[in-house]
């Protein structure tokens, strides 16, 4: 079994079979990270470049650890220390990296479509680690994996995604992923953060958080992305928190065994009350653990086989 494309640019391009292959492979990789010697020799002699042109703790560390646990050489480039500050274009940077013959390039960029340009420019496999407000496929895959391991399956579940839907690549990738896998998705957020025609993606849209989380099996809270907002789209953080924050009171509307997810970083006290973020039914840190396994699976599946 193999993935049909050279790159992983978005969930939109993946088939259900490919998603299942990635999740099954990732589940087998979980064990490697629990060993005393957390390393297998599989990608010995391979080079992975992590080109992170936008801030990241989790995703970058996760990709770096994933590469290292597979014995690949990993190199991290961030925008502040790269020649991008000297005015080099993305394509020139890509061609120069390609000339050093890596095997996989992981890219995060603030512009939607940057990984796609890179994938057309270089012969290496490109993994999208988040492009603007477009997609964040590895996040959606680790979310699917976390849901599947906690709930046994994804099909038939009621999932609410709440917050800044319009600016969220996590929401977009998860909507593609969850609907492909047969879950029912409801999104909620202030009208200014709700894309028009969102229903065309196969989801139900609500203007009130309470409406979206009724009978939910899973609630995914999104971070308010102050860095992507060009104008004031809500009056104040306090008001946002009052109407769209998840707390002890409104969570009772969901199913008794509801699980809370968040892609991180959490704005405590804004979208998530602190006691909810730390509650036993919060699986935010499981998401992080599974993230390493999903990225190991992708590096493994995208390397070699010529």
């Amino acid at each position, binding site marked *: *079994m*193999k993935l049909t494309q050279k790159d992983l640019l978005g969930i939109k391009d993946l088939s259900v079979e490919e998603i299942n*292959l990635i999740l*099954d*492979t990732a*589940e*087998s*990789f979980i*064990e*490697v990270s629990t*060993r*005393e*010697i957390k*390393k*297998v*020799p*599989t*990608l010995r002699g*391979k080079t992975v470049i992590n080109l992170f042109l936008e801030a990241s703790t989790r995703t970058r560390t996760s990709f770096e650890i994933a590469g290292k646990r*597979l014995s690949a050489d990993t190199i991290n480039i961030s925008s502040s220390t790269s020649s991008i500050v000297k005015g080099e274009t993305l394509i020139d940077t890509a061609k120069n990296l390609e000339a050093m013959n890596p095997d996989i390039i992981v890219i995060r960029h603030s512009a939607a479509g940057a990984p796609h340009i890179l994938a057309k420019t270089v012969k290496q496999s490109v993994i999208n680690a988040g492009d603007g407000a477009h997609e964040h496929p590895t996040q959606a895959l680790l979310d699917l994996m976390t849901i599947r391991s906690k709930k046994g399956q994804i099909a038939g579940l009621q999932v609410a995604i709440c917050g800044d839907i319009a600016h969220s690549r996590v929401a977009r990738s998860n909507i593609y992923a969850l609907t492909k896998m047969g879950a029912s998705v409801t999104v909620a957020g202030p009208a200014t953060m709700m894309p028009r025609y969102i229903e065309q993606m196969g989801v139900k849209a609500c203007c009130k958080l309470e409406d979206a989380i009724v009978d939910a099996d899973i609630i995914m809270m999104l971070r308010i992305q102050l860095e992507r907002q060009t104008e004031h789209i809500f009056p104040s953080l306090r008001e946002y928190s009052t109407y769209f924050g998840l707390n002890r009171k409104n969570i009772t509307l969901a199913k008794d065994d509801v699980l809370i997810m968040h892609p991180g970083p959490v704005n405590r006290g804004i979208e998530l009350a602190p006691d909810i973020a730390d509650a036993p039914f919060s699986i935010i840190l499981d998401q992080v653990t599974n993230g390493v396994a999903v990225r190991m*699976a992708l590096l*493994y*599946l995208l*390397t*070699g*086989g010529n």
Partner: protein
Amino acid sequence: MANQKVVMDADGIDRSLTRIAYEIIEKNKGVESLILVGIRTGGVFLAQRLREKILKIEGVEIPMGILDITLYRDDVLKTQKKPLLGKTDMPSSLDNKKVILVDDVLFTGRTIRAAMDALIDFGRPKLIQLSVLVDRGHRELPIRADFVGKNLPSSLWEAVTVHLTEKTGRDEVVIEESV
């Protein structure tokens, strides 16, 4: 599927496993610090059967691990289709353990090479012994088995398949000319 020949039937497999179980106990002077490690997938079922047999003989349930060697294969990045990765499950560190590695067919020895590399990542075993149901020859590496169910001379054009009830519904070792 021309020229299929059954070289071991269910009784034959069971007798071989009984003998191997006795041999393991004899060679190691008991079951102290033994651990059975089955190589996915055939070796896992054989290791389970050996474990039951040793329990019957010695009255001791010895620990058992499951090993998937995919990540250690020397051709893992060269094959067109990636082998599906299975789960490895090692119950404890292998430090100072006597490891009985169990597989169904011993052929080139490359699987065993990969398995030994994997085992070392789980600690420093006191020793590793190899148990196989069938040794069909054609080694490409300096590896030999300590316990063999049946030595089966074969040509490179033949395929040897071990069928186990847990996997394919019947116990049988079949040799056939491969197409």
